[in-house]
């Protein structure tokens, strides 16, 4: 190492830059330590756990029905989906049959939730890249969905909207008509977002070929949801392992082909349209009947464990629940959150990109820290 003897003229060390837990673009309390080579990211380390509330351990001391409240607060942007995943897992464990009407309404709620979550994703992603107006427009639509949810279950963010065996309430009168009106509004608004962004030269330059990841690599890294589908992998829990009423619904799953940020954007934009399609089918074909199945008053699943996953807006959310058959609390409650697994792929995605792209990529994989840290 003779070079060590003379001081080099230019000391080219890597610079360590900290995108601290408080940062306008990290979508929550996320800390990314970037090792920069000039302006390019050579390596990065992601520090999470700032929002860890111990939900899994808390659930071991809560009733089976009380846990639904805890599931609201994990992915607080898509609470109805998390509720649904949990309730379905317990129903699987107890082999409870959910009535058809409840399954249809659950599907409608899940899809409304998907639109709401994607609205928030679109707004924040566009705002990070500089298009501030899309943020306001997307939130305007999200408000409509929140109003629908408020009419249904009384809350705008933490819904507590499912029960083990079905739903807590039947839908209010006139709600289905409002949902259909909303679908019409939403379809026209998606056209607005497309006009603003999809063929915009600047948007293309900021998102094309940024964060390319191949399908097999994405699967190996455990990615899921639209982030995985943007890389061309046709994996969607709604199609692969249908739950609720998805086996009776007719819809397409958009797949990207290049695996860059632009494809992930297009996938989610198309999911808006597919979701309204599913909602229309759900509402128009809504069967009559009870909204909750035959569930014992005291919920005590037989001893056993199971893993069940549904497709939340962020990806595959899985619940691994162990019941010991004796107590009114679960023995082990584990949530496999899609944001946690997608975030794992972030260091691989941002390697080699500029600092300005890090922000675009965090938005592109669509994480919610409540879900990452639980």
């Amino acid at each position, binding site marked *: 190492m003779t070079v060590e003897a003379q001081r080099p003229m230019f000391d080219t060390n890597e610079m360590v*830059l900290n*995108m601290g837990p408080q940062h*306008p*673009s990290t979508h929550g309390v996320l800390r990314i330590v970037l090792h920069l080579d000039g*302006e390019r990211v050579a390596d990065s380390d992601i520090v999470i756990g700032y929002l860890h509330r111990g939900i899994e351990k808390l659930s071991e001391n809560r009733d089976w029905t009380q846990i639904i409240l805890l599931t609201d607060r994990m992915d607080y942007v898509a609470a109805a989906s998390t509720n649904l995943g949990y309730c379905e897992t317990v129903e699987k464990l107890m082999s409870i049959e959910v009535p058809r009407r409840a399954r249809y309404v659950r599907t409608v709620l899940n899809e409304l939730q998907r639109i709401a979550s994607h609205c928030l994703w679109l707004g924040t992603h*566009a*705002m*990070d*890249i*500089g*298009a*501030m*107006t899309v*943020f*306001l*427009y997307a939130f*305007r639509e999200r408000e409509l969905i929140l109003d629908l949810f408020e009419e249904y279950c009384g809350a705008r963010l933490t819904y507590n909207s499912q029960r083990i065996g079905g739903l807590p309430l039947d839908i209010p009168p006139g709600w289905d008509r409002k949902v259909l009106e909303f679908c019409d509004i939403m379809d026209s608004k998606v056209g607005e977002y497309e006009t*603003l*962004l999809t063929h*915009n030269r*600047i*948007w293309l*330059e*900021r998102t094309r070929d940024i964060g390319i990841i191949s399908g097999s690599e994405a699967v190996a890294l455990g990615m899921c949801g639209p982030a995985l589908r943007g890389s061309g992998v046709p994996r969607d829990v709604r199609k692969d392992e249908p739950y609720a009423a998805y086996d009776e619904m007719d819809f397409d799953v958009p797949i990207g082909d290049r695996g860059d940020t632009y494809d992930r954007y297009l996938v989610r934009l198309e999911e808006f349209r597919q979701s309204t399609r599913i909602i229309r089918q759900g509402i128009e074909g809504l069967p009559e009947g009870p909204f909750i199945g035959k569930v014992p008053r005291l919920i005590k699943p037989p001893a056993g464990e199971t893993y069940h996953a549904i497709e939340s807006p962020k990806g595959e959310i899985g619940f691994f629940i162990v019941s010991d058959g004796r107590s009114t609390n679960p023995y082990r409650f584990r949530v496999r959150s899609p944001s946690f697994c997608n975030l794992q792929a972030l260091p691989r995605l941002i390697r080699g990109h*500029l*600092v*300005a*792209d890090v*922000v675009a990529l965090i938005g592109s994989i669509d994480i919610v820290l409540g879900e990452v840290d639980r």
Partner: protein
Amino acid sequence: MVDIFVIPLLKIVILLNAILVSVSYMTLLERKVIAWVQSRLGPMRVGPRGVLQPIADALKLMIKEDITPAKADKWVFTLAPMMVLVPALIVFAVIPFGPEVNLFGRLEPLYITDINVGLLYIVSVASLGVYGIILGGWASNSKYPLLASLRASAQLISYEVAVTMTLVSMIVTAGTLSMVGIVEAQRESGLWFLFVQPVAFVLFFIGGLAETNRAPFDMPEAEQELTGGFHTEYSGMRFALFFLAEYANMIVISSVATTLFMGGWLRPFPAVEALGFLDLIPSWIWFISKTFAFLYVFLWIRATLPRYRYDQLMRLGWKVLIPIAIGNVVVSGVVKVLL
């Protein structure tokens, strides 16, 4: 005596006041216009429908605590914002708001002065603003504002080249460097130079967006960037001066664009006699309306477009705009000689 000292002094006082008030009300206009695009209302509380908001902002900034970083160079720290604002303001000395009009029995031109190298003066003075940015970043004695200020100044200088080339082609077309002369040339030819030199107009506008650090070229000062830009360490009135300088620059670019491309104080189709009734509207109102239209487009673009990444921005300036600008100069020269 009166002619040499009092009248220009009076004009300067009126103009400075008008510009400063306009600049502060530009902040309100920006917030309102962007809010309306985003289907919300903007500031509504202070004054009827928020009209007094800039006054509230000015008062707030004036009474804020004066924080200077510990090891910052105090004199330069205070000087830097001034060095950005003053050049932006003194450019208005040569901008013609109107021709000679009858005021109180005197024939007075509606501009402070008309030097025969007006355009050169504008270009040179406007470039001085870059010093202020570099000094601001350096005086903060902190590495992130320094880096950000160097990036911002690199952006400004790159686009200066493109803008200056565009102005050269305008000089070729108009045949004079004097601002009033350019307006007169437009009146004689009967056509706004916007139609004669559309490429130059587009280039000038894009270059103007980049010169003033406006979206989509506002990466150096975007909040989503890791650093807060060169004005991170500034607060209170010094920060206000940076801000005012940015809006003043916007008004400068808009006024210069109006003068060079949109006929200055001329009404549309100045040669057409049938539209003579448009002369009822005073010339300076025409000027101000056109400037206002430009400013509105600035705000409109900010509300709509995402922003460029820094390297894409530089690539656009050097690899796209400068070649086109130089080509435009050549073509203008050839056309001028042939016609």
